[in-house]
């Protein structure tokens, strides 16, 4: 065993292990770990891999439903979508690498989440991305936007998976810590899902994909450390993505998966070979012997430490049935990928690494996994804030000017500049493209489809973590319902500051409570997810951002609703209660430069009732135009419908309404555009079940007529909404 002497508490601390954690490592081993072992402990027990601060709370989330095949714990979540098929999906963060090197950071984020999904046997059918950037005025923002978007496109376009949706907003709290959350949705035959639990003593452990280099060593610990002013200079080696190789890996894995040669398979993501081999062994209760000399290497002189911690991309670890090595090798050679038998499963319960004839590490698998640290960190709830309504705000702009300002604001403006850089149509199944509430992607060769979206309103979560957590789930559910999809399940990507600070931990605990409550009330279980802590610089944290990615099922692609008002003479109907909540609204922020107040409360029973009503009307074919009301309220929602369809609307404004009516962000609301005949029916049907339905306008012409407040031509509206992002990026 090498380097026994020089591992100290100080060296452990440099690896991010606390004194207590190091003591526990020594106890488990019965001796001081060597350098390689220390590296393994440090990544396995990093926040990123061990979830030590979040585990306690994640356990409280609902994860089950009759249609859930596999919940959290595997590489991705799996749900039954009927016809013998399963949808497999997950969202993951790549925040820190994307800040340091936006193109490669974002690209490898996409690569990583794709592998999480195809490692389970699914062909990826869509990507989404939730992006949060700092203030547009911040010196770095433009460069980060440009690099991140190019990187996401560069990877997804090349591998040929359409990028169909996402979010992109700006806030100064992300100035030093942008968020890049990538989601992939795939489809697999329900009876051919692959898991990561190793089994079968003597079975070979196979390494496939790209060679290992010294890329991103310590990426997992980087993802678990805060930034300080020096991090710009430290610039750790970032990984470079190779989407072409990933495409080969995808096809080769799917080809091998069509045989029965695979026992277990796991991609090498954060902490590469260490976490993939450890997780496979520990899930299956197995030991594993690895011969590191067999690992395909890109560089000479690599040490065991480097091989185990490298985060080189486009690699997979597979346990094969003994004797199937040649079949597997033939497939990977056909696709011109590296293939190597690097070890065997054992009954020792230990992970034993050999290199050049020496044992370079010898660790007990179960104790290391079981006694991974778990913390119940102190947390403090955020103070409750008061609601703000129309009467509480000083009127700074006319309705017309406020609407134009909102439509041209960074958060609400069209994100076309982004999604046009993504191939959102490849695979020729994209039925609803970016720019709607949820994207709709047809299940190939069928008349059914999946709807998908990502949502979160960080300013709400900041103002009230519990309500904000609920709202993120509710909005996701609503965006799916607005297309006519039945929402099935969600993945979450929980981005927060340092859990070692009570108020941040309080935000986390509150958000989880809200997410859990909404997910229970809406029958919308959480099947996969990811936690990203330490998104803060110099003690200033990001707004808490639990991104929620949702998937829903559409029974008939010819029975969906779209956002655009595309015919004259339609009745515009608002479903749901309008109180005029302006607390934490975009109106308040953009027009009155205030971020004060409580966010709109979420009534989950109403949310469910109205959403189900809307879906039933879309399924019956009565409703073909529908949009939910969210950021910017009613005024913005109608403006978006007008822009999407190209037909104007004349609003019928109730007497005595104020800006709370126009721009309040009250939840559980939808806007429908239906022909006159159906309008009366829908209004009376909704009133019968206690849903408030108000006729707020009629479609026609080429202006958005706001009544007494004036009118806006469609071309002015379009110029404002489409203008901001390209204008900003080309400045």
């Amino acid at each position: 065993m090498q380097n026994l002497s020089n591992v100290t508490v100080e060296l452990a601390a440099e690896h991010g292990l606390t004194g207590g954690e190091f003591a526990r490592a020594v106890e488990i081993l019965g001796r001081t770990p060597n350098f390689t072992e220390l590296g393994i402990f440090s990544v396995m027990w990093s926040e990123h891999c061990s979830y030590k601060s979040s585990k306690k709370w994640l356990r409280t989330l609902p994860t089950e439903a009759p249609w859930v095949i596999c919940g959290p714990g595997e590489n991705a979540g799996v749900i039954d979508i009927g016809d013998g098929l399963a949808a497999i999906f997950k969202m993951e963060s790549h925040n820190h690498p994307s800040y340091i090197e936006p193109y490669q950071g974002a690209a490898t984020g996409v690569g990583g989440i794709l592998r999480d999904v195809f490692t389970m046997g699914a062909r990826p059918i869509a990507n989404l991305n939730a992006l949060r950037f700092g203030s547009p005025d911040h010196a770095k923002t433009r460069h980060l936007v440009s690099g991140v978007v190019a990187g996401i496109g560069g990877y997804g376009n090349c591998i040929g998976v359409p990028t169909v949706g996402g979010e992109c907003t700006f806030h100064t709290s992300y100035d030093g810590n942008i968020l890049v959350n990538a989601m992939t949705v795939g489809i697999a035959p329900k009876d051919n899902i692959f898991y990561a639990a190793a089994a079968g003593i003597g079975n070979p452990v196979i390494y496939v994909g790209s060679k290992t280099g010294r890329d991103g060593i310590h990426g997992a610990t980087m993802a678990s450390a805060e930034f300080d002013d020096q991090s710009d200079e430290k610039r750790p080696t970032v990984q470079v993505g190779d989407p072409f190789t990933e495409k080969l890996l995808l096809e080769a894995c799917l080809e091998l998966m069509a045989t029965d040669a695979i026992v277990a398979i796991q991609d090498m993501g954060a902490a590469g070979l260490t976490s993939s081999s450890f997780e496979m062994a520990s899930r299956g209760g197995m030991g594993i012997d690895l011969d590191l000399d067999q690992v395909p290497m890109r560089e000479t002189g690599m040490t065991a430490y480097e091989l185990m911690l490298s985060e080189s991309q486009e690699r997979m670890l597979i346990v094969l049935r003994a004797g199937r090595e040649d079949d597997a090798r033939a497939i990977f050679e056909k696709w011109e990928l590296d293939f190597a038998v690097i070890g065997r499963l054992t009954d020792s319960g230990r992970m034993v690494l050999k290199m050049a004839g020496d044992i370079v590490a010898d660790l007990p698998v179960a104790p290391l996994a079981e006694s991974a640290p778990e913390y119940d960190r102190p947390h403090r709830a955020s103070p409750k804030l008061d609601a703000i309504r129309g009467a509480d705000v000083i009127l700074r702009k006319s309705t017309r000017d406020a609407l134009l300002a909102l439509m041209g604001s960074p958060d609400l403006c069209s994100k076309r500049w982004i999604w046009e850089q993504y191939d959102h149509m490849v695979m020729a199944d994209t039925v609803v493209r970016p720019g709607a509430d949820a994207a709709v992607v047809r299940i190939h060769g069928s008349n059914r489809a999946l709807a998908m979206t990502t949502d979160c309103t960080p300013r709400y979560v900041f103002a009230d973590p519990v309500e904000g957590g609920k709202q993120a789930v509710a909005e996701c559910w609503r965006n799916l319902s607005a297309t006519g999809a039945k929402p099935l399940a969600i993945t979450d990507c929980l981005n927060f500051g340092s859990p070692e600070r009570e108020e941040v931990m309080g935000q986390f605990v509150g958000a989880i409570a809200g997410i859990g409550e909404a997910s229970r009330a809406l029958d919308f279980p959480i099947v996969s997810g990811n936690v990203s802590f330490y998104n803060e610089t110099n003690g200033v944290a990001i707004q808490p951002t639990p991104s929620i990615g949702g998937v829903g099922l559409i029974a008939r692609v010819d029975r969906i609703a779209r956002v655009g008002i595309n015919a004259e003479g339609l009745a515009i109907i608002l479903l749901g209660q309008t109180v005029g909540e302006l607390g934490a609204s975009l109106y308040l922020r953009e027009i009155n430069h205030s971020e004060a107040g409580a966010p709109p409360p979420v009534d989950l029973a109403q949310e469910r009732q109205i959403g189900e009503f809307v879906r039933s009307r879309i399924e019956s074919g009565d409703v073909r135009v529908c949009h939910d009301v969210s950021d910017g309220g009613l005024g913005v929602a109608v403006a978006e419908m007008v822009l999407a369809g190209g037909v104007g609307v004349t609003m019928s404004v109730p007497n005595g309404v104020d800006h709370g009516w126009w721009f309040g962000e009250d939840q559980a609301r939808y806007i429908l555009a239906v022909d006159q005949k159906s309008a009366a029916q829908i209004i009376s049907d909704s009133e019968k079940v206690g849903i408030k339905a108000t006729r707020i306008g009629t479609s026609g012409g080429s202006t958005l007529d706001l009544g007494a407040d004036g009118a806006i031509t469609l071309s002015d509206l379009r110029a404002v909404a489409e203008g901001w992002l390209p204008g900003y990026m080309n400045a």
Partner: protein
Amino acid sequence: MKAAVIVFPGSNCDRDLMVALEQSAGAAPTMVWHRETTLPDVDLIAVPGGFSYGDYLRSGAMAARSPIMKAVVEDARRGVAVLGVCNGFQILTESGLLPGVLMRNRDLRYVCRDVFLRVEQNDTPFSNKYAQGQVVKIPIAHHDGNFFIDSDGHRQLEDEGRIAFRYCDSAGLVDNRSNPNGSLANIAGVLDPSRRILGMMPHPERLSDPNLGGNDGRALFDSILNALS
């Protein structure tokens, strides 16, 4: 009509093209792996979009030198019709079957969106179901679609009526604003002298189904069926 679709390791529109061809022709095309050295006896060879070999070095460069392309060039010289879409167009120019090059888009960004095309020639195996001058909506999705050719080459294309499609606006106006990538003279697709080889950047296979937002691409595949069976 019998067709073959060439599949490179990084092709990603091979399935889309297969579906569109099958929809028009009623029979599935043969998928031919890039390492093959011969082609089945077919009426049409289709080279699909994607990133054939990652599009590293230059788009289409490595694919053009792959084993199967020798066979494609030979069959094309014998008169078999060839359609190259997007990366397929780039491969056809790199292999010398079509003139010109496809350079990085004018503003250097990848662009994916619907564009309008004006059908400049409808007397070809690929466009006989369109009207001359018809304006159609078809999506593009590429990083390197900026068609360039020297002025003699350009003149020749114009004189011989070998510009198949040009980018235009919804009214058919061909100008700089309706040019999505900086292509010379808004050229979106070109023919070889025999008019049996077409390369085009837009993806007709992506708008050949009303569920996907349009059906204008369908006529291209119907034209092929009409001409070649």
